[in-house]
């Protein structure tokens, strides 16, 4: 008997075009289903419908039927589905309720009425399962993005749900962490529906593939068949990291640098590398190994505690999740900030990233993918000598990723580009060579 059944589901957010159009499928106990599709194709909406959040939380026009474990989501509130359904959302920072890791993992267990004497042990077991037992006593504000994502995954797994919904669960994890998270979800015994923008991370572990386009399921097939039918950009690609020799006049040189946010703890030690003009260098490394810190040092946003960073010309830095950090009322004004209000240059930069016609739109009215491109335009417009991009493919679908690769390669000859990424497939496509940070116990040997 199917665990979940979706019948002719159509849904439109208030005042919007339909996000889902006549979607039907069933989910069987224990199967792992991968949900693929371009940004804006309705993946997140479909996951929310399975959790009952659509329509209860968002409102809008809902037709059709969604049933999970015999419960009709129109008549069962999401909070009553919790425990049967466990949902991990895209952005870990937006789902954390408490300040401490233990309390955070216990929160869902308390809500679903777990006997008090079992709460602590189940929370500890869930943290251990995701390899985060060591984080138990920590504050969430101190964790890296990847560590926080593990904690959020533990919070969901602790509920022991029958249907596990994962919305881009690996977006902030390094490849090993991502593989472990997917394997963990698979071995939990729950039916798993996972939406992902990096197909190579999940296709090996799944039983079935659903592909969405414009709110419709255009492919629903077992994994083997799906591999023959998926659009080319969505097929798994091998990461073949390039390892060319450093080339070009050095634009940024990081020399024997150490840095720590706290007096008694160093995040980086004795770290050296350089980026030359015309080069695209990928900065790789496990979660929490100091990649973002190193990128900020290279861009001049942080000053090293010891050692030296030298740069030629202007440096621009695009932070992780840049769509969150937009300040202007119009897209073109946002981009023009970096060029003293030159709107003509700003509009050209918008067109370069595919946002022609969006000039007068409010940045917060754009979709998350469009915001990311707007933020990219806001740094590209300055034509910096050194461009530093921190996880630019987070939440970006493969087709957009290919466009980004082409853009960076096309513009790369005149500048030095440093790309911090956990996405080794992207790094293979965009970079000339890579440098790697290492995790804490091995930090003395820092960079490759």
């Amino acid at each position, binding site marked *: 008997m199917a665990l979940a059944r979706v019948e002719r589901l159509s849904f439109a957010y208030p005042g919007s075009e339909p996000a889902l159009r006549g979607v039907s499928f069933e989910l069987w106990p224990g199967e792992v289903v991968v949900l693929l599709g371009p940004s804006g194709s309705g993946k997140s909406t479909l996951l929310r419908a399975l959790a009952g959040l659509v329509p209860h939380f968002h409102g809008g026009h809902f037709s059709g039927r969604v049933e999970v474990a015999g419960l009709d989501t129109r008549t069962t509130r999401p909070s009553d589905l919790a425990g049967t*359904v466990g949902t991990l959302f895209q952005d870990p920072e937006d789902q954390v309720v408490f*300040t401490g890791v233990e*309390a955070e993992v216990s929160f869902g*267990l308390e809500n679903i009425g777990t006997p008090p004497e079992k709460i602590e042990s189940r929370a500890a077991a869930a943290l251990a399962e995701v390899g985060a037992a060591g984080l138990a006593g920590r504050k969430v504000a101190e964790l890296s993005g990847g560590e926080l994502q593990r904690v959020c995954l533990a919070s969901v797994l602790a509920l022991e749900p029958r249907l596990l919904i994962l919305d881009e669960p690996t977006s902030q994890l390094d490849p090993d962490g991502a593989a472990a998270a997917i394997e963990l979800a698979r071995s939990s015994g729950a039916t798993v529906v996972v939406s992902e923008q990096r197909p190579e991370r999940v296709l090996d572990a799944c039983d079935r593939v659903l592909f969405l386009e414009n709110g419709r399921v255009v492919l629903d097939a077992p994994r083997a068949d799906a591999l023959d039918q998926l659009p080319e950009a969505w097929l798994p690609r091998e990461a073949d990291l390039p390892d060319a020799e450093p080339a070009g006049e050095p634009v940024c040189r990081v020399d024997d640098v150490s840095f720590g946010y706290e007096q008694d703890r160093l995040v980086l030690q004795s770290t050296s590398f350089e980026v030359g003009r015309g080069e695209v260098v990928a900065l790789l490394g496990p979660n929490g190994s100091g990649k973002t810190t190193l990128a*900020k040092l290279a861009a001049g946003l942080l000053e090293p505690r010891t050692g030296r960073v030298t740069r030629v010309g202007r440096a621009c830095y695009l932070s992780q999740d840049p769509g969150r950090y937009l300040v202007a009322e119009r897209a073109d004004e946002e981009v023009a*900030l970096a060029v003293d209000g030159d709107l003509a240059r700003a509009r050209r930069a918008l067109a370069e990233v595919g946002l022609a016609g969006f000039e007068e739109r409010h940045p917060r009215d754009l979709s998350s993918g469009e915001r990311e491109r707007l933020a990219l335009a806001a740094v590209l417009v300055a034509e910096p000598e050194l461009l530093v991009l921190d996880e630019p493919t987070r939440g970006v679908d493969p087709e957009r990723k290919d466009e980004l690769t082409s853009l960076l390669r096309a513009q790369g000859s005149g500048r030095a580009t440093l790309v911090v990424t956990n996405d080794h497939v992207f790094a293979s496509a965009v970079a000339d060579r890579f440098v790697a940070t290492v995790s804490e116990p091995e930090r003395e040997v820092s960079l490759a």
Partner: protein
Amino acid sequence: MSPVPAAALLAGLAAAALLADHSASVALICVLLLAICLRAPAERRRMYLVGAFLSGLAVVLVTPFVETIGSHALWTGPTVPVLGRLDVTSEELRNGLFQGLRLTAVALAFAAYALLLDHDRLVQSAGFARRSVLAIALATRLVPTLERDASGLVEALRGRGVEVTGLRGRARLLSPLLAGSLERAMNLSEAMEARGYGRRGATRAPRPPWGTVERLALAGGVLAVVLGALWL
């Protein structure tokens, strides 16, 4: 220390500052609360302490001009519509100092609450009105979250070569900060509902029992209120 008696002690000290009649007593409470706040890391406490002292100072400076008490004029100025004649008397100065100290004491008590208490355990300890306590805890978390968002915005702008300087530059961040926190609040409430928040039959993780320190702190809170009302 368990957060409930610690919160009770801080609330007691704040109440005592509001009930006390003498500036010296309120000043003493301020010193005590400042000593407590100084236990927090320097980077974190700076913003709270600056806020507490600036708001107290503002009251000290403004009160003499908006009050009309006392007969020992130290300075007499022009007559201003609505406010009347501007003057400063020694009684107004004393009262301004007293009210400023009171506000500083309350702000320091909040600073100690925000900086030093384990808000997670406070929520978990709430035997009743758990929703209200959770709302207070989330509101308390809002301050550091806004702080982080603000530095994220400043950093994102610096990353584009745009320096945020002056009052006007910082004021430009207010609207995106507000919009960002509203988005965050929506996402958080959705995630909370998906994790069963609001469902009947919720339980709580067991709490460690209170020891002598906790009992003393609770008694200290009550004692502070009584002393404030009767003797200070």
